[in-house]
């Protein structure tokens, strides 16, 4: 299975809150899990990525939590700001294959 399931579809959080976006996968051959941020009219921009040999990775206000046994990973945004309002995509890739398989996206709105 190549699917990556992402939830929720949309999320509204107050400024300073911690939005959490979840993704689940079936294919155990996936070995690279990036998160992308996309603003309207723009291409996706890489935020942070993780490999299955670690359970957590932090870069600035963004944290990925990875649960290999559950085949799930999630993005946490600390101290969220209105400028974080965008669509977020999780993705996954099989070792030896350049193809990224994307989730369906989460539209995040941070209200002041």
């Amino acid at each position, binding site marked *: 299975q190549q699917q990556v399931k992402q939830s929720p579809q949309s999320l509204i959080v107050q400024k300073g809150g911690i939005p959490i976006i979840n993704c689940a996968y079936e294919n155990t051959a996936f070995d690279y899990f*990036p998160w992308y941020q996309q603003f309207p009219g723009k*291409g996706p921009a890489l935020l942070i990525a993780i490999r299955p040999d670690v359970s957590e990775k932090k870069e600035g206000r963004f944290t990925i939590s990875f649960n290999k046994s559950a085949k799930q990973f999630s993005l946490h945004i600390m101290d969220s700001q209105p400028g974080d309002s965008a669509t977020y995509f999780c993705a996954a890739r099989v*070792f030896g*294959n*350049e*193809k990224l398989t994307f989730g369906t*996206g989460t539209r995040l709105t941070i209200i002041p």
Partner: protein
Amino acid sequence: DAGVTQSPTHLIKTRGQQVTLRCSPISGHKSVSWYQQVLGQGPQFIFQYYEKEERGRGNFPDRFSARQFPNYSSELNVNALLLGDSALYLCASSLSLQGAGDQETQYFGPGTRLLVL
């Protein structure tokens, strides 16, 4: 440094026509991938080229074709356009094939928005 550039930014075509989309990767990047993003969905992989050779193909009909030039730029061609081909077409480049650590990160361009009427 310039990022991935794509042209044109917008395009309107009618059913049955053909379209060519262009992509220039980040300087030094040898791998180019193409994705289709339908409104409200995640990008879907179409092709990947590395060193002018096709290295991967997604589940798209033969109406879709691509090539990569000696300067690593790339073109995506779509023949016999259908209404369902309306989408944002994204190009992504990376320094090398995946498995080379940070060099495998794919950087996306702004896309070409294609509308088929």
